[in-house]
């Protein structure tokens, strides 16, 4: 069908973008220079940096050849090592940290959408009512207050109640490479298996206390993120509702005798939600990219947390790989948004 071809075509566009991304990150690698690049590959085992690099196929006097070696490394997952926040292969670190961010982002997105759609509909159907004013203040505060501030406030207010103070990291993991619990779902790398998403793994293993703990640890970070996302999309849904209500087809619907509630839910809202999909897509991709401050404040071992450490310690391989991953996330969410949009809006020509 047409939609299928649209998806394929749209997916193919990713390839050149991806190549561009590899070139950009390669420039970054070049800029860091031989010493820092070699650091990721146990350079101390070799008698000099050049030898260490040569063993990986890198030669800083041959940009083209090095670029292709770099590509090989990138696509095979041979990403060297990092030593902060954990001392491990970069690939392993990503495997540990990334699923946590996915879990957080998905949870925050779902909660936001569940709240935003009915709330946005309600507010958007009553522009300038007290409810709308309240929503406006809420959104404004969501924009104005930095996430880390809210995070701290939430910890102070509720941290004790949900039992996550003083350390809020999702793992029963002490930050020094050892585990505090001996749940069978953890392997040596402190990664829960099989999905690497603790909530799900705990459920699969039937470890209810662990599930509960993982759930409790999620509440505050999710609340913090939800506040920000809600602030954004609530305004968008509201604006979309007001905009759609003023269009002629709404009059037609009323003229047919469609009851007011159905006019709002069926005719106005469906049109209002279209632009919101785009905004939500952007928000989710930024979430997946790791909401650095939120993860940092909550000691939440997500990819943002990892990014802070790799950047701080100039661990080149961590930086390169994370930049690359962020780029891919952005492309994929954009693709998904485009497809959803095409699916929802018949006017999109594929």
């Amino acid at each position: 069908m047409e939609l299928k071809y649209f998806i394929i075509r749209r997916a193919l566009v990713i390839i050149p973008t991806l190549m561009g991304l590899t070139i950009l990150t390669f420039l970054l690698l070049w800029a860091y220079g031989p010493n820092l690049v070699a650091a990721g590959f146990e350079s101390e085992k070799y008698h000099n940096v050049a030898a260490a690099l040569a063993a990986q196929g890198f030669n800083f006097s041959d940009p083209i050849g090095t670029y292709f070696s770099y590509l090989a490394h990138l696509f095979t997952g041979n990403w060297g090592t990092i030593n902060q926040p954990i001392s491990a292969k970069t690939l392993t670190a990503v495997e540990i940290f990334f699923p946590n961010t996915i879990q957080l982002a998905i949870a925050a997105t779902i909660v936001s959408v569940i709240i935003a759609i009915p709330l946005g509909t309600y507010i958007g159907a009553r522009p300038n009512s007290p409810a709308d004013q309240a929503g406006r203040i809420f959104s404004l505060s969501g924009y104005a207050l930095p996430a880390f501030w809210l995070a701290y406030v939430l910890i102070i207010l509720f941290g004790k109640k949900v039992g996550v103070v003083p350390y809020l990291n999702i793992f029963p993991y002490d930050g020094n490479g050892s585990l505090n619990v001996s749940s069978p779902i953890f392997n040596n790398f402190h990664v829960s298996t099989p999905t690497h998403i603790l909530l799900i793994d705990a459920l699969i293993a039937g470890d209810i206390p662990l599930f509960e703990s993982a759930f409790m640890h999620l509440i505050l970070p999710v609340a913090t993120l939800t506040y920000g996302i809600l602030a954004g999309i609530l305004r968008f849904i509201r604006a979309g509702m007001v905009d759609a209500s003023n269009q002629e087809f709404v009059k037609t619907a009323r003229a047919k005798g469609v009851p007011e509630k159905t006019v709002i839910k069926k005719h106005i809202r469906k049109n209002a939600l279209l632009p919101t999909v785009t905004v939500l897509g952007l928000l989710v991709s930024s979430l997946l990219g790791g909401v650095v401050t939120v993860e940092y404040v909550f000691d939440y071992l997500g990819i943002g947390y990892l990014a802070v450490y790799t950047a701080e310690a100039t661990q080149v391989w961590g930086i390169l790989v994370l930049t690359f991953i962020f780029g891919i996330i952005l492309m994929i969410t954009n693709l998904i948004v485009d497809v959803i949009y095409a699916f929802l809006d018949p006017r999109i020509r594929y």
Partner: protein
Amino acid sequence: MVEENITVTEQKERLKVQDLKVRFFTSKGIVKAIDNLSFSIREGESYGLVGESGSGKSVTATAVMDLIPDPPGRIIRGKIYIDGFNILTDLDQLAKIRIKSPTDVIIKRKKRLIKRHNYIMSGIRGDKVSMVFQEPFLSMNPVMTIGDQIKEAILLHGRVDIANSIIKRETMNAQEVSKIVDTIMAQPDTQTRNKIIVRLCGEYAIPELAKPFTDLFENSTDRDFIINEVLSLVNTKKTGLNLEKLEESKNYFLLRERILDLNLELIGAEHSGDERTAAQLEAQIKELKSTMRSQFLLYSIKRRFMRRFIDAPFEKFAEGRTLELLTQVNIAGPERVMTSYPHELSGGMLQRCMIAMAFSANPQLLIADEPTTALDVTTQAQILDLMKEVNKNYNTSILFITHDLAVIAEMCDRVGVIYGGNLVEEAPVKEIFYNAKHPYTTGLMNAIPRAERRFEKTARLESIPGSVPNLIDPPSGCRFHPRCKFKMDVCSEKKPKLVEIEKDHKVACFLYSDEVEEEPREEIP
């Protein structure tokens, strides 16, 4: 003030508008969009409303549907009788308007009453009166298929009738069929016969069989053969659905219709100050609602969560009817159009779809607000023919709005000329064209380009000097006086009243009558 009983209007008047006054409260001031407008449309009549752009034609049409966008607009006074019921009966209770200054107006809306008003209006709109809008592209929901939009209109009204039709189809037996075949065969005239067939097919929820049946009766006179054929065709259309469930749906909608009717009565009783009846009606409504809640609890839950399943027979009916409607408006490839989105169709096709939609419930009154302005000339002629046909065949009254006098000449029986929110002249169409009285109307007439005039020696297209007045601060007295060639002193001081100067011919101009329209002193200017 003495109020007449709300159900008493002159018989056969499908629409009666009395003293309509519409205001828009904007940041620049109060737009006096419609002032003391009165007119009525009889059964089967086509009434044209003409005037320049901005004269208030669309506002009048929208007001008749009670769809004036609020904010900024409100109908602030008047009566609009649709089928004898004044839809503005509860107007005064809906909102309190306080004017501090023209740019600072406080409107306190009574939410509960507005809710009831909307509920009642949604029962009237689309059922008794439908509207075709000016811009077909903007007037269709862009993210719903044409079929879904028409089906929605069909399923909003007359569910009980639909259920009855389906039950009739499902229980149709040989005896019934032979009786019907006899009646049809007894009809010698093919045309009437075909009409009967179409009507019966609609009644039995088998509109798609109308065509094979007419062919059948045309090609055969063998009674038994026809009966057999009809029976077998009807049997292919029977779905064997659960009639008990359908009965349940029917009873549910019967109750809903009953509650709506009682609410209409309640408003009437409240308005006429009959507190005892009102209290009785209120109690009755409450009781019915609680019956509905208890008796149809399970049903409403199912309807809410398994809509598709519960509504399946209705949906199927609506699909057949949609196809039939689309065929009626001469759309090529109705099946394809049904699954199309508005952006996939041309303006002419969309306008046909709008007309099909407007006719889904066979309304008695159709409001057409410049339905052909956005279309090219050929399509325009086709659409007009279509509307004329409908007007004739179903005896539908039409309120036809346009600024094109040629279209008026073609379409309308009677014409009202509107200027600055006031009706300035009203007469049968011939009178307007050959015996126009009001200086504005004669001006409009002279502005029509006519082919034959090009060859007259003195031929000149005249236009009316000046432009439509600003309705925030309209001219005093006769609103036309700044542009009028015959302006007298009185014209800027007093407002002429619309009076009947010849039979059926009303004019508001001091050239013909001295009667002055008394401007009522009221809170809202």
